[in-house]
């Protein structure tokens, strides 16, 4: 007897359509707000002339990196190289997208990580979801994102958020679970409230792990933002996509190089912000 095909695909389609139909207005509002944030940030970044921006980043790198001259010079030179390749506006667009999506991803991920560290049930629900999110090919996220938000920056951002959240959730959970038992006992033994215990003992102790999650989240956002160009997200990813479509190695490589420069700067900055 042949077992009939279980309609998993149909089910997912049904759910997606249902959300689309019944929550359309909410989706529109979300879309407008995030679009506003992204373009606002983008406009702000573009206010600075490239050379000024590169110098500001260089100086910031010098102090954040604890007087690391190499990082300072590298950041400034890298940004000037981007400007020189004529990719400045696209890069700022990419940075706006990355910062916005990483920021939103972290706003969701860190509380979820805390909840899953504190609550056994939440942990058992969230963990398989994370496994699913991380193993599902990232392109698959693009489909519902397009259905909900059409083409453009916002669906790219949503797909990026989903893609970039898991490591931040995991590392937050891990960080809190690894707080030594004696330390949580200290918090309890001196009469802390659960909130005091979390904010004064657990989160600060877990901070290195949480910051590693933040770093991962930003890096994954950057890689997903490039893929999101396929559904109309702007920025360097779009340039790469055009490079692929036209088989233009030069253009593709230059855009790729721009992404690498941004990645290195973002990575070093977040790493230096992590307390040792």
């Amino acid at each position, binding site marked *: 007897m042949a077992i009939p095909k279980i309609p998993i695909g149909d089910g997912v389609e049904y759910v997606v359509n249902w959300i689309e139909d019944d929550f359309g207005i909410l989706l529109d509002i979300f879309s407008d707000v995030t679009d506003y944030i992204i373009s606002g940030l983008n406009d702000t970044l573009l206010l600075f002339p490239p050379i000024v921006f590169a110098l500001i980043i260089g100086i910031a790198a010098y102090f954040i990196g604890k007087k690391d001259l190499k990082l300072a010079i590298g950041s400034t030179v890298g940004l000037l190289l981007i400007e020189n390749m004529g990719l400045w506006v696209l890069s700022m667009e990419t940075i706006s997208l990355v910062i916005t999506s990483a920021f939103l991803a972290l706003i969701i991920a860190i509380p979820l990580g805390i909840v899953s560290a504190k609550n056994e049930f939440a942990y058992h629900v969230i963990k398989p979801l994370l496994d699913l999110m991380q193993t599902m090919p990232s392109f698959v996220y693009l489909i519902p994102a397009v259905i909900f938000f059409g083409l453009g920056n916002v669906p790219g951002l949503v797909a990026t958020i989903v893609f970039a959240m898991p490591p931040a959730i995991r590392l937050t959970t891990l960080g809190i679970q690894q707080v030594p038992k004696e*330390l949580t*006992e200290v918090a309890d*033994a*001196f*009469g802390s409230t659960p909130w*005091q215990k979390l904010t*004064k003992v657990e989160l600060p*102790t877990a901070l290195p792990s949480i910051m590693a999650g933040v770093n991962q989240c930003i890096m994954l956002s950057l890689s997903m933002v490039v893929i999101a160009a396929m559904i109309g997200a702007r920025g360097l990813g779009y340039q790469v996509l055009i490079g692929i479509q036209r088989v233009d190695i030069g253009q593709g490589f230059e855009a790729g190089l721009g992404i690498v420069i941004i990645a290195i700067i973002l990575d070093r900055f977040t790493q230096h912000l992590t307390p040792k």
Partner: protein
Amino acid sequence: MLTGDFNIKQEKKIEVRNLTKIFGKKPKKALSLIESGSSKSEIFEKTGQNVGLYNVNFDIYEGEIFVIMGLSGSGKSTLLRCINRLIEPTAGHIILDGEDVATANSEELREIRRKKMGMVFQNFALIPHRTVLDNVAYGLEIQGISKEERDVKAKEAIETVGLKGYEDSKTSQLSGGMQQRVGLARALATDPDVLLMDEAFSALDPLIRSEMQDELLALEDKMQKTIVFVSHDLDEALKLGDRIMIMHDGQIAQIGTAENILTEPADDYVSKFVAGVDRTKILTAETVMKRADPVVSMNSSPKVALQLMREHGISSIFVVNREKHLKGIISVDDAVSGSKAGKTIKDVMTSDVTVTYPDTPLNELIPIIENSSPIAVTKDDRKLLGVIVRGSVLGALAIEEA
């Protein structure tokens, strides 16, 4: 079970009644088995539940150092954590100042923990991103006390433990001994009545450990806190404890003073436990001294002294006044020559007597007894209590070893 006959006229600070802790998911069944008197191993066989504490009852008096002593798995740490409910007891009561900690709601429990109990942990458990000052101030901070006020109190506590000048240091830069001083200061900063110390010195190397023990004793002399000290180190327990409770398998094997436990072990477990102890540190002059009998009065004559020595077969005799205060000693030779020359006791006695006090440990007497037997044991006002001769020290040690 032997309960210590420690008759200090002190208030009970903590009363522990029928305290039981069962580890496992179905404690109720195990609990009813305990009530019907089943043993720990029977309960484990029948229910698969592990009994951590089996119906424990004892009192802790105000101002004493109460040492809970046992090997790992004996339930001593569980018991300590039940007192402030870091571990939730399955049944029983912990009465602190007339208030039952075991049934307090979370608000009341928090208040008790904030105001009445401080805790010191084995591995120091200092919060890594905080300075010494901020670690010590933690207990005050969570009570919502202002920064200025808590810094003043925290600095006092830091000074008490001898870390003045290290307020702004990072804790990771301190040695183990210093870190534990911070841990102690943190517990003292909120000025609690009760200090719970969980193997507080076990992670320190022996020299530092001994130094910290001495300092804890000195602090306790000044502060008179009630200290519950968990230890697996018998020497430490004997040194610190006003009373010691030995735990075995989640039950109390014996409660008593150090001497109680060494001289009258309640059962085989305790006697095996204490077998390896260095008794010279525990036994005091008082426990090995003999009655100073006979003695000779100041107003008596050398002839009488000689007679007494001859009767008792001794080679020297203490001279006392009417109130039995020690005045000197006369040897046989001096008594013989003195009585021939018709001298008085005062003329022949020498006031050069080795004197010790009842609570002097034996290990301090052993080096001097060789050359200065007999040693007089006196009170502070030189009232003669007893005498220690070389033989009695060796005898005491030999009996205890047997």
